[in-house]
């Protein structure tokens, strides 16, 4: 088992290296990255100076080597706008994003897991229909639009929740709800279908044949098996939540990494964008590793005796 996780860990490092390559070439997609960093009205002298300063005039391979070398030390260059190391700026905003994503995920799981199980167990019942309806609606409108509508109703019209900022729990409610909608829908739907499939399995028939009550059959024998594919989906949702946080933070003026990244794009502050993408990748890869460990705990078939 340790060996399996070690293999995954080494692979993860390779994946992150791949992301670093991606990020390096990302800013060079349009050719010379100088144009990307400087405003269009910059003078030729300014451009030439900036290019020398950033080392963009040197051979690509050397630039890449230096990028990787510095990245290994956590150095992604300084923000042009704030003059501070880009990674530190991202890191400073991380707790805010973590809080928002964690609360949203918790909200999704708390709603979706009981709903998904209940829908599958009482197939074609009212619960099932309600669950299916919400899962369809939840994944069919844009997150940012939901955010705006929540602000309209709860902040503008009812004036019971603040539309922006961070600090109090009230400020967390609207962004967390709007961010959780999509994930809740997805997790409900997938848990329902996993449960339906597991309930068809031969070992469920065996459990019933033993005379176990339906409650024991569902909660002891079925849920644990359905959990395995569902964990995968929840892990994928963490990625989606972190991505979705970008736009949600923008709507609610929530001071997280996502908002920082969007402002950086607007300000042509691409060192921040690079640091942000890498940081996200490390985060997601780490979560996937944790999920791999979860599988080993949940599924004895993956344990080596």
């Amino acid at each position, binding site marked *: 088992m340790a060996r399996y996780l070690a293999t995954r860990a080494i*692979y993860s490092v*390779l*994946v*992150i290296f*791949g*992301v670093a*390559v*991606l990020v390096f070439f*990302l*800013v060079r*997609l*349009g050719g010379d990255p100088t144009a*990307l960093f400087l405003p269009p009205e910059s003078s030729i002298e300014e451009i030439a100076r900036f290019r020398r300063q950033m080392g963009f005039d040197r051979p690509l391979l050397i630039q890449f080597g230096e990028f990787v070398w510095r990245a290994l030390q956590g150095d992604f260059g300084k923000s042009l706008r704030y003059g501070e190391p880009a990674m530190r700026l991202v890191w400073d905003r991380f707790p805010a994003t973590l809080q928002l994503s964690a609360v949203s995920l918790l909200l999704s799981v708390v709603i979706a897991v009981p709903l998904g199980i209940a829908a599958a167990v009482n197939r074609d019942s009212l619960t099932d229909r309600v669950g299916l309806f919400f899962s*369809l*609606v939840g*994944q*069919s*409108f*844009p*997150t*940012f*639009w*939901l955010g*705006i*509508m929540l*602000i*309209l109703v709860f902040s*503008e019209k009812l004036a019971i929740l603040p539309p922006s900022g961070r600090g109090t729990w009230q400020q967390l409610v609207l962004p967390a709800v709007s961010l959780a909608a999509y994930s809740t829908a*997805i997790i409900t739907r*997938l848990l329902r*279908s*996993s449960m339906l*499939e597991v309930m068809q399995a031969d070992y469920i028939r065996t459990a019933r044949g033993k005379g176990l009550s339906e409650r024991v059959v569902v909660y002891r024998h079925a849920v644990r098996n359905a959990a395995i*594919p569902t964990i995968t*989906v929840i892990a*994928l949702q963490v*990625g*989606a939540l*972190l*991505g*979705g946080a*970008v*736009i949600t933070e*923008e709507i609610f003026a929530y001071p997280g990494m996502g908002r920082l*990244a*969007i402002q950086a*794009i607007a300000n042509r502050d691409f060192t921040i*964008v690079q640091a*942000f*993408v890498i940081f*996200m*990748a490390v985060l*997601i*890869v780490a979560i996937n590793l944790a999920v791999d460990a979860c599988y080993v705990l949940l599924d004895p078939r993956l344990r080596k005796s």
Partner: protein
Amino acid sequence: MGFLRKIVASRLAALGLILTVAVAFMAIFAPWLTPFDPAAQDVTQRLIPPFGRTPEGLHLLGTDALGRDVLSRLIIASRISLLVGVAAVIVSGFFGVMLGLIAGYDDQRAGRVIMAVADVQLAVPFLVLALAVAAVLGPSVFNLVVVLGVTNWVQYARVVRAEALTLREREFVQAALALGASTPRILARHLLPNVMSSVIVISSLQVARMILFEASLSFLGLGVPAQIPTWGSMIADGRNYVSSAWWVAAMPGIAIFLTVVGINLLGDRLRDLLDPKLRHMER
């Protein structure tokens, strides 16, 4: 048309079909359907609420901050949403299916490289990646299609690869190999036709997803150029007036919602009919 009858045997799927066909109709015939010139500004008639009248006539969905008819702009904007959604799905589907087939048929060298690239891409949240690429390339319809297309091949590749891996071991493929069939023949005649139903299902659900992403990117000003109306940019425009003129932001959102619900309902039905094992697929 036995298949169509099977689709509409479910009432929800019938609703999905109606919504989808309606939106497609709207997009195709948009120039003839708009009650007003969608670009005509009239600041004296700005932010008129739905069903409000101006000298020009009845504005069913009101007007926006520049006095443009919201309904007319919605109708015109449907073109970009559908165009981008469908084009991105064609691009990503093409690459995804091709790479997935190769990765599944040769799981040693080519397959490992392809799936490693997929893992790299999956390590970056899609929206973040699309955002960064769109920011570098700049706003244009072409760039948007490229960004959405190139960043979404993985969904196809993973499913197609998984299917190709099992198909390759299936005895009919072994039988073709025993007859001396070439690799292109195996891929084209034996693997591709057998993954197509999955691909159709994924594509239908991906169109819905692409429409949502197009809206997100346009909302952030990173999608299509500002002068082309899209549902996403209309919401962005309306956001500033949301307390006084809610309809400007609400209406395009409802348009997106109805479109996406329709396509999702249809896609779910296609999946149940064509490929029930894809139930666990991540949309």
